[in-house]
């Protein structure tokens, strides 16, 4: 009797532990939202990636369709080569635009894909030719100042 009671209590403890871990994984962590499994990889060249990081989201119309795989610097052309992992369920035309945006005023940076009108779709290993760099705040300010100065002349 005594031993069976202890067994029950230990069973309850273990069940509580597993339930807590399960709740942490699904409700608190991102185990469920990471449902991108099979992907294809395309490349994109950027003159300036700003603060883009590997594993940053790739969004089409605001929906997460993939993640940035790697970012390397090409020493021959002096630009950044970004590998994009896109979910197999989503296809994009060949002339898709890849833009680097910032979520919110100070948020993380992500790649936004805007579909073009081409009839052929992007395949694994293809290069996205239409890209737009990250907006660098200092450049923007200096452009604004120069244009102001030239107006006043």
């Amino acid at each position: 009797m005594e031993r069976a009671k202890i067994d029950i209590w230990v069973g309850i403890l273990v069940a509580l532990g597993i339930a807590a871990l399960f709740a942490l994984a699904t409700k608190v962590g991102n185990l469920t939202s990471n449902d991108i499994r099979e992907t294809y990889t395309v490349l994109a060249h950027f003159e300036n990636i700003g603060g883009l990081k590997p594993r940053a989201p790739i969004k089409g119309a605001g929906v997460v369709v993939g993640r940035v795989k790697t970012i390397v610097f090409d020493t021959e052309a002096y630009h950044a080569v970004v590998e994009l992992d896109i979910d197999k369920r989503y296809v994009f035309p060949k002339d898709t635009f890849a833009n680097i945006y910032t979520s919110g005023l100070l948020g993380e940076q992500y790649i936004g894909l805007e579909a073009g009108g081409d009839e052929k779709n992007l395949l694994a290993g293809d290069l996205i030719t239409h890209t737009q760099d990250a907006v660098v705040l200092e450049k923007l300010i200096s452009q604004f100042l120069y244009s102001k100065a030239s107006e006043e002349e």
Partner: protein
Amino acid sequence: MNKLLNFFGNLGFALRSKLYRLGAGTRLFFLTLIYSADSFKRIHLTIREIYYTGVLSLVIIVVSAFFVGMVLGLQGYYTLEKYGSSEAIGVLVALALVRELGPVVTALLFAGRAGTAITAEIGLMKATEQLSAMEMMAVSPIARIIAPRFWAGMISMPILATIFSMVGILGGYFIAVLVIGVDEGAFWSQMQANVDFSNDIIDGAIKSVVFGFACTIIALFEGFDAPPTAEGVSRATTRTVVISSLTVLGLDFILTSFMFV
């Protein structure tokens, strides 16, 4: 001249006794590993100890977790509100609990609640010569007494830390969403976007396993090594709490600096 000799003598004695304790503790750990098979063959011994170390610690863990979560919710809200980002309260509470407070506070409570009980029990067994009696009957006290308690501590501690984190987050949810009125959807979705399963939750679990090991082996060794007198047992119990707490905090710094680069 005599004073100088005394000084070096004391220094040498202090170092020698510290080294002895470190070595004897390591030896006890390896002996425990060697005799561990018995504690799984007679699993009811281990389950009994999980009941005493784990189940009986559950109440203090749950109550303190809820209060820690509520305090985090309140304090976080006061600060985040100044920057107009009170929705980030979920991230703050979850990361603080899963990464740090869950494993560390659980380990401190575990050392105080279960570690002292282990030390006092084994010390008293030694003082009343129960351990010697076992050896006379050719029953190894390490296999019968130490190993089940060791594995019970190793198993209970991660379970308790996981429960602590989850209950703490519920405490933060209670204050932030139900009392203050932060948006519920933002609370959970910001949390999910910023808490990574493999980086944050698993690393927290690894911490709790390491702390469970440290607390349990310290408690066992202090009990096993206690002088067999009333005073000796009481001193060993005190030392268990002091050494376990300091070890947990020190290990926490080392683990954190490795894990969250």
